[in-house]
């Protein structure tokens, strides 16, 4: 799908950079930044689908929500892998030491843990298995996951907090709009939202 192809752009750029050794003096930081940021961005985009549907009636957007969510999770996997492989060289002792010194690692890992069941149950089959209501309840985990991911980003940045703050503000808008729309909703709830 076109959405999947679009989602691959940051990854393609990274792969090219790795192969040509052109990722700058700190390639590991670059990789982590350019897997973490797409993860957040695609997650935010997936959170934008419902408000945009309700406000502007753009029902077609629903088709994008699963690919966006899965793209976010895919980048989160790469982000976690790059941390484990390049930063910690798959050493359990190193990881324990690092977590003790850098607590934001645990926050990020928690966000990843919360997203994992969402990725695993993203298919039609699972919606059927769980039933629409339970599936929807499970997928509300995206909210704490998004908050934890923002805090992870904010906590790890040493100096220039512009980007993490920007992402937090946008998340606030996305979540706030949902609350606002909830209050305004007088009509009956729409049919099960996972259509694609």
């Amino acid at each position, binding site marked *: 799908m076109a959405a999947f192809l679009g989602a691959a752009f940051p990854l393609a750029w990274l792969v090219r950079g790795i192969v*040509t050794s052109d990722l700058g003096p700190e390639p590991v930081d670059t990789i982590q930044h350019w897997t973490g940021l797409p993860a957040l961005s695609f997650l935010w985009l997936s959170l934008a689908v419902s408000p945009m549907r309700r406000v502007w009636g753009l029902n077609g957007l629903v088709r994008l929500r699963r690919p966006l969510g899965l793209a976010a999770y895919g980048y989160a996997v790469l982000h976690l892998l790059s941390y484990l492989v390049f930063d910690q060289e798959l050493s359990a002792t190193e990881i324990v030491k690092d977590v003790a010194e850098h607590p934001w690692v645990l926050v990020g890992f928690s966000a990843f843990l919360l997203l994992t069941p969402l990725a695993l149950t993203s298919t039609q089959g699972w919606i059927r298995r769980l039933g629409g209501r339970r599936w929807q309840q499970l997928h509300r985990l995206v909210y704490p996951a998004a908050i934890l991911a923002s805090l992870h980003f904010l906590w790890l940045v040493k100096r220039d907090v512009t980007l993490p703050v920007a992402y937090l503000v946008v998340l606030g808008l996305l979540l706030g709009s949902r609350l606002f729309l909830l209050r305004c909703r007088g009509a009956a709830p729409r049919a099960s939202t996972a259509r694609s």
Partner: protein
Amino acid sequence: MLIRRPDDLPVREITDESLFWDRRAFLAALGGAAAALALPGSAAALARRAREDDKLTPYESIISYNNYYEFGTDKSDPQANAGALRTSPWTVAVEGEVKRPASYALDDLLKGLTPVERVYRHRCVEGWSMVVPWMGVPLRDLLGRLEPTSRARFVEFTTLHDPKQMPGQRYDLLPWPYVEALRMDEALHPLTLLVTGVYGKPVPNQNGAPMRLVVPWKYGFKGGKSIVRLRFTEQMPRTTWNIVLPDEYGFYANVNPTVDHPRWSQAKERRLGELFKRPTLMFNGYGEQVASLYAGMDLRSNF
């Protein structure tokens, strides 16, 4: 050209700048060819190949990735803030246990001494490293001319103290000015360099212009930058990082993978630009040349 084995000492006379840049182009082409060959290879093969050589760190990285707290504590701060530093005229005071204490204009201090070009590994105590083509004068040549007395057992190097030009000095992060020192035999060692250039050009402000110390078998913080004073002493001087954090930074600061920093391991390092860490070498790979200086010394307590 390339440092093929860790213990090679790549001593060369200064080269014509055009020849120098030709060699860089050759090295870059080598690197490109190697990368192209690696395309079908696995990530492990890439990692292995990266460890086998000491490629020159690109000029852009060397001038933009610096620890020079006088200009800020981020790696990018020195390049951003060091423009204000006036490196000419520059005076160096020679004091202490020396035949003729005096103040010298930098040009006079180094006049007549033959510059050399040396490609050295540079290992920061933080755990990253570079390979840098320095240009400078062996410190032993200058010391020979300055004639320290028989009581001189150490040489102390003091960095400029001027908060107007060095905004980082407005904060009490370190007890300015920055001071470093060497034992006399370390100072007289052929590897020890008073550096004035890099990649065939005058050393940029953020790298310690106009003159800095480079001691390649020690952690980078031993190499004082923008030196304004050389003082010969009988007693071991207190050096800045050792004053601030004596449990973490010692006088000798020899690169030693078996002696960890209290907060992190020194067994590995990340070469700038590389994905995987590489093992740190004893004395940064210069053991053959310098180990004898420390024969019989406990390198764990004399860290």
